[in-house]
């Protein structure tokens, strides 16, 4: 009973955005802001298929019409591959439209950099590419 109450307190504490690492090689919340995740729509411009993280790059036109060059972190290529997403899925869609749900760096961090949760390339398939830190599911992902 006491523990249950304590757990509710902790959950509230966690919801407030306190830093809680969930990745075993660096803490998401140390670098990224899970409360400011957003939809990004633009053009896929590149892919770095690297360890420990793969990165993709996209050009996004902001509200003022200026093009922002974003760099977004994904999970390791091994996990992407075994989950059905290959390097060729990216290279084959460079220069084409795409959309991603991503969480940007915290205030003071590198601009136009973030951690992607899931994305849709020009082939129209939804791919999970990172930690799903938000409480939303792909059907709530709007283009």
């Amino acid at each position, binding site marked *: 009973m006491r*523990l*249950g109450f*304590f*757990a*509710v307190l*902790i*959950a509230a*504490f*966690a*919801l407030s955005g*306190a*830093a*809680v*690492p*969930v990745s*075993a*090689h*660096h*803490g998401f919340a*140390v*670098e990224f802001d899970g409360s400011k995740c957003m939809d990004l729509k633009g053009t896929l411009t590149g892919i*770095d298929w*690297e*360890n*420990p993280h793969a990165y993709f790059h996209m050009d996004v036109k902001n509200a003022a019409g200026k093009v922002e060059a974003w760099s977004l972190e994904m*999970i*390791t*290529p*091994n*996990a992407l*591959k*075994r*989950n*059905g*997403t290959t390097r060729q899925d990216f290279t084959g869609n460079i220069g084409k439209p795409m959309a991603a749900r991503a969480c940007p760096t915290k205030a003071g961090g590198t601009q136009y950099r973030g951690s992607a949760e*899931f994305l849709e390339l020009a082939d129209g*398939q*939804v*791919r*999970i*590419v*990172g*930690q*799903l*830190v938000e*409480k939303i*599911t*792909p*059907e709530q*992902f709007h283009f």
Partner: protein
Amino acid sequence: MTAMKRRFCNCLGSGGVVLAALCMASTPAFPQGSYRPGPGKTPVPVVGGFDKIHPLPPGGPAPRMSDGHPDLTGRWYPNAAGKMLQFAYPLDPAAIRQFDPKATPEVAPSFKPGMEAKYKRPAPYGECDQAGTPSTTLEQDAQHAPMELIATPGRLAMLYEYPLDVRMVYMGGRQHPKDPDPTFNGDTTARWEGDTLVLDVIAIDERMRNFGGEGGGGGWFPSAQEHITERITRTSKNYLTYEITIEDPVVLAKPWKSAPRTWSLAQDPHDEWGEVFCTLNQEPDEYKKIKEHDAQTKGK
């Protein structure tokens, strides 16, 4: 509320007691990295075909080596599905978990007076170095990367994709040396108890934090007197059970014991060893400078 609690349960010790209590108290609504759609919502197809994944059948008896002991050889995934399920959605919870916390719960470790404050430290930003024994095996609960075992009567090679690690276990009655040098993986001896391989580990480098996902209560640092016992049993062709006891007379009030954790045999015949290096690797940035220089000086 339950879902949010569970998402933060693969915690690595930051926040100490607070997170330990959270991990203990949460009952997973769904595992790390997977969702179920809300009521009335149609699941959107997600690349990966994960809705078709369920626990493997036992697959027959465990094969045996020439000496009659079970052959532990195989590519093993820390779940019941025989494939990597990190960030997979949607997913049968029975397929992704290593143990049922209702049936075989893991409780937080109990510390000697004053030891929790001393030996629990916040998780630093980068933890890309080796995790050592036992964290390399225990943390797969969150990582879902495979462990490959190559067994002969004289030797067991334990290979981990993430973090990249090799443990070489020598069979045939090898004893601990008198004063072994500390290493990240520790000094291991091995013996069979029936069909269970029992590994005895001492002399683990004290800088190796113990952590291992749910139930581990967050990470803590060992003393030089830590003593680990690992029990590995291949219960059938498709399944391996791994159970560990951590004793530390300096830090722990009583031994911490894991649940029997399930590992399942890789099913895809084309599932090969994959390279996963986790380092603070700044070489790619240096390499890029060469390319940038080429681009800038092109045609000059």
